[in-house]
């Protein structure tokens, strides 16, 4: 577990939140929604390997 990763996910969260606010304020609501979606996708991609490990370990644990 990498503390770095947590910080990075947090940073992306903040950035997305601020972007959301700015875009909503200038009326571009569709763009705001897109950025939120993009943020979720990016974070998922960052942790995809961890999630894959998680599922593997759960699978092996239950087969035991």
């Amino acid at each position, binding site marked *: 577990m990498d503390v770095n990763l947590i910080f*990075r996910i947090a*940073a*992306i969260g903040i*950035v*997305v939140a*601020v*972007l959301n606010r*700015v*875009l909503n*304020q*200038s*009326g*571009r609501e569709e763009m705001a929604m897109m950025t939120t979606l993009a943020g979720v996708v*990016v974070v998922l991609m*960052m942790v995809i390997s961890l999630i894959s490990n998680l599922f593997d370990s759960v699978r092996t644990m239950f087969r035991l």
Partner: protein
Amino acid sequence: MGGLLIITASGLLGILFSNRLSSRYNELKNLRRFMQMLETEVTYGATPLPAALRNISNKAEGLISSFFVCISDSLTDRRFYTLWDAWVFAADTALADSSLQRSDIELVKSFGSILGGSDRADQKKHFELFYLQLKHQEDAALEEIKRSSKMYRSLGFLLGIAVFVVLV
């Protein structure tokens, strides 16, 4: 370091976009101002266009100045035989680097079709109409600034941070 570079580059890009909006507004305002000077030369002085345009280009600066000078020179050099041709050419070259949008440039071009083509009273009416249309564009530009200028600036920096975070 690399990260700082990415963030500043992205931020500057955002500022650039934001500035384009405000310079469009300024250019439109300038255009209107110098067109009013041109109107004075035309309706009061009855000065022929090549001389009138050159007089005003001396008082103007930057893009508008080079726009007027381009028309004036191409007419006196006989590169074009009608005002319309010279006007359109100048609009396509001198105004190409401006922050003016296509709708603004089309508006300017359309004015070239009636400039110099009728008597003073008629020209005055056309000038009045042109000012109204320019004011309309100016108001739209101002609206645009209020709406999007801050957005572009924030967008620039934030995207820069996002990229930095993802890559690092």
